[in-house]
């Protein structure tokens, strides 16, 4: 029955074109025109909306991309034609050189990826946790929200550079390492304390190092979690309250509700945030690799470009890996 209804409504939609005044002639009758279905006309309108982007990509972005790829595979020749640069194609020479020469590219890359593997889960878990808390009714919620989203606005670009070179606050901050790497004496907890704590639990040394580094990097993790918090909060808001009501009536505890309702419903956001965190971490001014590549560029921009393309491919691989992991637990609610 409902299937039939659906069919009927679909047919109705298609067969009821919108009539503009411009389509009527002076007698108020429909002008003779080529029959264009509503869907086709809507599709055309859709193209108009995305036209700026299509034009930008075709006219400007693609040439820039091709240029960049070409630069990474060619060497400039100033001698052949005087006053003009001729580019000799050298293939993957720079790419191979990046891995084989003594510039330390591989080391930086591995360090960058390690940093990322440590940071992404921390940022995601932290921002999800804070979003869940900020979604509950509590004293001073509006003020806390305002404070928590503050870093989104003021901790990018120039401020990031200033933060990184600032050891004043690290010294006065008695216990909070602000990520400048110079607050060694001021770490909140030392590895020793945590080891004591974990000794009885028989867990590996890696975990201890991980926990310690997260706690000591808490300032950066909080600062990098702003947008993710917003996205999670938006996701939480979109969960229908009636689901929670049903859970309460059936006697589910808060813990069960979180893992059986909130988590599956928010899981698409985890993928989005995972991808965003990777992009954000990789393209940040203070990223190890970005700094390394800029340093290389002083010597040869061509080689640096090749390195950045390798770097980009690595980002893509990591994002693909995150998407693959996430797809195993992501739950998409059917919306009718």
């Amino acid at each position, binding site marked *: 029955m409902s299937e039939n209804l659906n069919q009927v409504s679909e047919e109705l939609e298609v067969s009821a074109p*919108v009539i*503009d005044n411009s389509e009527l002639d002076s007698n108020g009758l429909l002008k003779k025109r080529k029959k264009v279905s509503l*869907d086709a006309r*809507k599709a055309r*309108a859709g*193209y108009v*909306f*995305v036209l*700026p*982007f299509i034009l930008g990509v075709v*006219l400007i972005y693609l040439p*820039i*991309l091709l*240029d*960049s790829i070409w*630069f990474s595979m060619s060497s400039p020749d100033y001698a052949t034609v005087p006053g003009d640069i*001729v580019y000799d194609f050298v293939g993957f020479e720079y790419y191979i050189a990046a891995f084989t020469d003594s510039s330390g590219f591989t080391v930086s890359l591995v360090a960058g990826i390690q940093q990322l593997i440590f940071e992404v889960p921390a940022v995601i878990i932290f921002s999800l946790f*804070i979003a869940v*808390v900020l979604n509950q009714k*509590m004293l*001073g919620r509006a003020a*806390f929200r*305002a*404070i*928590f989203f503050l*870093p*989104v606005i003021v901790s*990018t*670009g*120039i401020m990031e*550079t*200033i933060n990184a070179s*600032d050891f*004043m*606050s690290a010294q*006065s*901050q008695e216990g*909070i390492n*602000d990520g400048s790497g110079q607050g060694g004496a001021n770490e909140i907890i030392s590895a020793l304390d945590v080891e004591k704590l974990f000794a009885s639990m028989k867990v590996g040394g890696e975990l201890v190092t991980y926990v310690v580094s997260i706690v000591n990097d808490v*300032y950066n993790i*909080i*600062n990098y979690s702003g947008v993710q918090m*917003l996205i999670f*909060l*938006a*996701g939480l*808001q*979109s969960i229908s309250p009636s689901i929670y009501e049903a859970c309460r009536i059936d006697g589910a505890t808060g813990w069960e509700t979180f893992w059986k309702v909130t988590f599956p419903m928010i899981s*698409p*956001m985890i993928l989005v945030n995972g*991808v965003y965190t990777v*992009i954000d971490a990789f393209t940040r001014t203070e990223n190890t690799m*970005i700094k390394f590549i*800029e340093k290389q560029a002083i010597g040869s921009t061509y080689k640096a470009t090749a390195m*950045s*393309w390798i770097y980009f491919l690595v980002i*893509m691989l990591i994002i693909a890996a995150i998407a693959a992991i996430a797809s195993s637990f*992501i739950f998409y*609610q059917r*919306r009718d």
Partner: protein
Amino acid sequence: MENSNAYVTKETKNSIHVDYEGKLSFKERMMSKLKTGNTWIKVAINVIRFILMLGVSYVILYPFFSRIAGSFMTKEDIVDSTVSLIPKHFTLDTYKFIITENHYFSAFFNTLLISLVCALLQTLVACLIGYGLAKFKFKGNTLIMLIVVVSMIIPHRTLQYSIAPHFINFDILTVQAWGYKGPIELILGKTLILNNSMWPLIILSITGLAFKNGLYIYLMRQFFKGVPDELEESAYVDGSGVFRTFFQIILPLSVPMMITIFLFSFSWQWTDEFYTGLFWSSADFYLMSDVYGTPPDSLLQYQTFAGWGLYQNVIQNTAGMLIIAPLLILYLFCQKYLVQGIERSGLVG
């Protein structure tokens, strides 16, 4: 109902107070509540949660406090270990010298103009593209969304060695390394020289390719997906065209989300030094990166001072405070829209 003589004593938007015969006194009700363990657990959770939030807020806000405090200190206070947050010798000199000698106001107005134009364009363009991707089924819809994501993933820093030349000698459809002439050069006889102007940023903004525009487009798309189709359908039935519907019905609806995007793009453009560094090279066009880059001359004379390294940091932090001060004021006014816009977006996958 039994208690027919129940009457409402107070009624507000969120709560209603009712008095009825046999109602226990406030004290008795509280006592009976306290006897159940549940209340204690709730109170404990609330307290722990509040303290945790306070702690995280402290981590976020402390650098601001310490920087603001430091900006009022003289160089003697900075090396004085007994001074932590309240300066002994209060001074405004650091601010004064940065504002006068590092051309703060000039940089302020230049940056304001750039950020306003870029943010307005980016917000509008993100709306257009997001709406097109969310509400219209056309061939290549998914492909375009994919390109949006990829354009965000490829760091512009990767491309900087080809972005800059492309705008210094601007032409469309040219791969400069291949050395052929583009349409603009064929028609005008020369390429357009766009550096030291706002055009590169305007062009990038209009085409939705500027800094983090992929994120804006994604957020707008998700927002528009949450807007029920019936709204537009009823407008179409009433004879409104696609564009009129968009500008008169959909845009007014999405103001909170647009303010969110505007806030993002404005403040990210405000603190940007990568793009302004790429496109501006003239020495007498001041930008925010000039404000914090080098300490003002009047303070440079203290270079021989023992705590110069620390002092230099304080100067830089003060400049940083001056740079973000307008953003903080803007944020105070807009932050409620930030949460509102996101809350109403109903983001789903």
